[in-house]
């Protein structure tokens, strides 16, 4: 026990003493310690400058790259969406226009048909009217021919009957009479 106590200062103290002190026992050497500290600080500096900083920058730039790419993709998508909706709107407009035009064409056709039908009817009416008129004329003409013919027939018949005693005066009178009769008929 006294032994340990007397050893204690030696144990904790530096170089002197029989055991060389705790620090010596543990192999601690202040010069080496300082060399190690300086060495590590140097290493830290070199590593920071040539390893951690470039790596950090690289990762940061890649992160930004990725962000930019995603942003771009998003923007592209949005632009495409807008374009598509525009196209759709335009398409719808075109379709509406086409429908309207067809409607219009159909309307025109209908009108045209109506007109044609009306023309045709009018023409038919005209033709019928003309035909009637012609028929009228024809019948009048026929009638007058008939009158003439009947008169002549009557005259000839009468002439044959009265061949012998037919004077000019009598002849004239007879003609007159038959004409009158035919007219009357």
């Amino acid at each position, binding site marked *: 026990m006294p032994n340990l106590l007397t050893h204690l200062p030696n144990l904790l103290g530096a170089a002197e003493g029989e055991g060389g002190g705790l620090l010596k026992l543990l192999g601690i050497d202040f010069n080496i310690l300082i060399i190690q500290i300086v060495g590590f600080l140097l290493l*830290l500096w070199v590593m920071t400058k040539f390893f951690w900083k470039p790596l950090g920058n690289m*990762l940061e730039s890649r992160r930004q790259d990725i962000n930019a790419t995603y942003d771009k993709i998003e923007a592209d998508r949005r632009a495409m969406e807008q374009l598509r909706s525009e196209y759709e709107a335009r398409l719808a407009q075109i379709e509406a226009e086409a429908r309207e035009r067809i409607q219009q064409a159909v309307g025109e056709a209908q009108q045209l048909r109506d007109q044609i039908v009306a023309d045709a009817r009018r023409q038919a009416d005209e033709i019928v009217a003309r035909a009637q008129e012609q028929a009228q004329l024809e019948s009048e003409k026929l009638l007058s021919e008939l009158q003439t013919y009947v008169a002549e027939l009557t005259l000839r018949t009468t002439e044959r009957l009265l061949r012998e005693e037919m004077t000019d005066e009598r002849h004239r009178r007879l003609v007159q009479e038959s004409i009158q009769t035919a007219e009357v008929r």
Partner: protein
Amino acid sequence: MDERLNTLWTLTQTGIAAEIAPPVFSVLSGIAALALVVFALAATSNMQKRPGRLQNLAEIIYEFFDNLAVSLVGERGRKYVPLAGTIFLFVLFSNLMGLIPPGVAPTASLNTTIALALIVITYVQYESIRANGVVGYFKHFARWGEVPVFVSPLMFIIEVVSELAKPVSLSVRLYANMFGKEQVTLALITALAVPLFKSAYIPLPIQFPVMMLGLLVAFVQAFVFALLTLIYLALATEHADHHGEHAHAH
């Protein structure tokens, strides 16, 4: 036996790392640092938007620490990524060096780990003062406003002691892990491999399980060191946010 081994491994045999001259460890950690720088330059020399394999690995590491820092510290934790990441990579490379046969992990020396822990803890104090102000820094230690006033002095002492214990636990944890792994490997080699095979390199089957464990420990300890660095930074600067919100509220 010692003559036959004649490697750096023999030097750790006696148990205390002091047997290997500390300068050897600085040279070793220098090699680890150099390897790390070569890796870093190779990964970032020809960076492209479409990463190659090495760049991809580097980006995965970066993103991992970026996420970790943001989840632990918040958005302002981004600036701690280089420190935590460099610590992770350096410790990892150092740890892995111990798994390549003639090498010893530089982290199996307290000089290396204490250097790292001192840098971390000094930076934590600096960040704490910068975030809270000098008065706020001491108030933080006393848990001012969080505990009754008469408890504050006690809290101050406890917090200071725990703050002082941080670098010790940080450095000793890493050191003892790596040192222990080296010791166990060495014990297996000297006790079994050398008598049986007359060589320290041939009898891989004997050391292999320990080496696998060492691989796991190498990653876990490197991660724990970086994780604790971030957590200490988060704890030291967390109050700044509350004060900030408070100030904004008024």
